[in-house]
């Protein structure tokens, strides 16, 4: 049994999200799913009149995807959460916590104890650095 989900390549993600928004879909959330040691997929869930439309986007652990937060602002929070917990970075995130959404991560450089992976915080690059910062290192528990 699998959920109905449209496979979408990362390069086509923004276009797909824009199309759903223009078709009247409401953003619900995203789900990160680990597939094996190196691969995972992100499911994007949209709703219209109680019917869900799901997009399935492949990404490598520690890899990068285009952020859809420029299309649907509500995605910024869950994209930051996935960055914190799975080290997937989102290019163009409109409100980027740079891997520090969760206060614990920000203060102790260790994420919540049950996260399978956590991102070690990089030293603060200082003012004037590019948004998004440097990718953290991925460390298995």
């Amino acid at each position, binding site marked *: *049994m*699998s*959920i109905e989900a449209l496979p979408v390549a990362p390069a086509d993600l923004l276009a797909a999200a824009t199309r759903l*928004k223009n078709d009247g879909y*409401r*953003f*619900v*959330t995203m*789900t*990160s*799913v*680990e597939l094996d040691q190196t691969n995972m997929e992100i*499911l994007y*869930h949209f709703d219209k*009149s*109680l019917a*869900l439309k*799901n997009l399935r986007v492949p990404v490598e652990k520690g890899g990068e995807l285009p952020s859809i937060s420029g299309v*649907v*602002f*509500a995605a*910024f*929070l*869950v994209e930051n959460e996935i960055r914190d917990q799975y080290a997937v970075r989102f290019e163009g995130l409109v*409100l980027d916590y740079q891997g520090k*959404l*969760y*206060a*614990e*991560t*920000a203060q102790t450089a260790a994420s*919540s*104890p*049950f*996260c*399978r992976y956590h991102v070690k915080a990089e030293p603060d690059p200082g003012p004037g650095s590019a948004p998004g910062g440097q990718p953290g290192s991925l460390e298995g528990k």
Partner: protein
Amino acid sequence: MARTVIPFGPQHPVLPEPIHLSLVLEDEKVVEALPTLGYVHRGLEMLAVKRDYNQMIQIVERVCGICSMIHSLCYCQGIEEMMGLEAPRRARMLRVVWSELHRLHSHLLWLGLFADSFGFESLFMQLWKIRERVMDLNEATTGNRVIVSVNVVGGVRADLDEGQVRWIKDTLVEVEASIRSLQSTIMNDSTVCKRTKGIGVLTKQAAHDLGAAGPMLRGSGIAQDMRQLKYAGFDELAFEPVVETAGDCWARSAVRFREALQSIDLVRQALDKLEPGDLAVKAKGRPEGEVITRVEQPRGECLYYLKGNGSLFLERVRIRTPTFANIPPLAAILPGLDFADVPVVVLSIDPCISCTER
């Protein structure tokens, strides 16, 4: 004009749950609000790899103390779908009874807290006094006031006898009368209206675009409620979503007030349809595959994504709680408000940080 950054939380007199908002002010006006989470993040989703799928019921019940029953309902429905099980009709009706009692006590709790947020302490105490009657129903019928723990994969583990059904109905007559006696105060009192009408307006379009959920969505004129999916026993009950159109704090309050009365009606309908029958079907096999299941919590739409591989342990449990969905709309409506209105508007989304920090 110089800007001032004021911290709101993580501990605040109107919100004893840890969320932090960095409020950027110009004079007394909010111009930007940045939320910070993670003070009590528990990583419950990740426990799925360490607890078997039956033990996970007790875990998901603790995602939220206020709507524990609805979390386990959503989870069990997902597991049942994966395993090809259908809970017996009596179990599905009992699930409606306890989930609506949870909604009722949650809304009464919130209405009281909301009144307290603008200093109406006598209203707060009246509402919580009524809520205690509902908590008594939970305790007497399940053994617990808050974490009622009635759901199992395949049905429920508790039942109601005829005496309990009669007692619940009698109690709800008194609870309904008590709630209705406060209606004009909650809806029309000048103190309430001055602090809530026209404050924190979320338009219908913004509610849709920002992914709002629950009373936040319905208070802005969108008639969407997951109970329309007719899960559990809702397929046999008369139900229409409660909708208000003003999109302000008053509208969100009105939705919850009317939903409290609606929950009483739904409990009565479900009790009237209770017929003798099994409480659960035996679960055979192991969950395999992936499902998405959704239910309506007091705070809105809750989504569970479950993935099993045929073993005792699930590969992935993903929980999208309604407060998580309502934080982006909150961040969007705070700019432009007077600083004094911030606590009322934050309360108006009925924030459950326990859910958010699952």
